[in-house]
């Protein structure tokens, strides 16, 4: 069953796109204030660097993720973390999905 439930379209548009939902889901594994390196995240999500950058920028604009450029020794590193706001949005989103699912299963 893949038809679109009308109530689904009312969900948070920032993370409702499949790619951004995947990014935020992966980042939600990190504990508060922890960040993951860009290449690790990219590999885990199996996205191209360009594609991931585009989605990270949209998430950054919404204040859901924070992207920091830093150095590990001499090598530059890009770190990505979920902000408090992003974590809340993710939790609201999953709660909304579960709420949609429950009445559907009772039918």
């Amino acid at each position: 069953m893949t038809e679109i439930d009308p109530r689904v379209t009312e969900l948070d548009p920032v993370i409702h796109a499949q790619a951004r939902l995947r990014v935020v889901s992966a980042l939600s594994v990190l504990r508060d204030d922890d960040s993951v390196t860009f290449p690790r995240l990219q590999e885990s999500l199996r996205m191209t660097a360009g594609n991931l950058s585009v989605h990270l920028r949209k998430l950054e604009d919404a204040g859901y993720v924070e992207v920091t450029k830093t150095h590990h020794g001499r090598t530059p590193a890009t770190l990505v973390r979920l902000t408090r706001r992003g974590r809340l949005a993710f939790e609201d989103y999953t709660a909304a999905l579960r709420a949609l699912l429950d009445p559907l299963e009772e039918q």
Partner: protein
Amino acid sequence: MDDDVPLGNPAESLALIERERANLERDITPDPRWMLWPWGIAWLVGFALFFLRYGPDGRVFVDLPDWLPLLVLMTLILAAGVTTGVMGARAGRQVSGPTSRQGLLYGVTWSAAITAFAVLFARISDVLPEPESGLLWAGGMVAVTGVLHMAGGALWNDRDLYFLGAWTLLADVVGILIGPGWHSLIVCVAGGGGMIVAGLIGWLRLR
């Protein structure tokens, strides 16, 4: 498939969320097999040789050179230490923040504890008869391992690791009470075997 398109079905979305969470979790966690199996193998092989050469009540089951069990155990432990150090550091570089600092401090704690006890044991084992001196070293170091695994379980909120530590400590204490010789056999089977099993369980959970 256009990945900017929303998913229509909540169940599909929830499955996608769980899949991506499991993927990153696995990618940033050091492989439990690499973290525990080298130690399990070191204990299985090393303490088996100790039991065969230095059995209960001075029995010699297999007449190995008297230096062989210690050399093998130490070599395997050194190799295990290097392996887990490298694998732990590699995983630590993927993530930055409080968790990797905790990991680094936890790793340093192992070295500090082992060094402190080694100094103490080296200082007093000379005045003990050989079987008791061996029991002091083996019993003490296995106790350190058990306690630090328990502490690790508490730190990472990891029940399996906590249970492994408690199990190791229990096996150690039982072996110490029964005495030299038997201690080697119990640590070999229960301690080394326990780490192999724990590594397997940890890996299966992450898969």
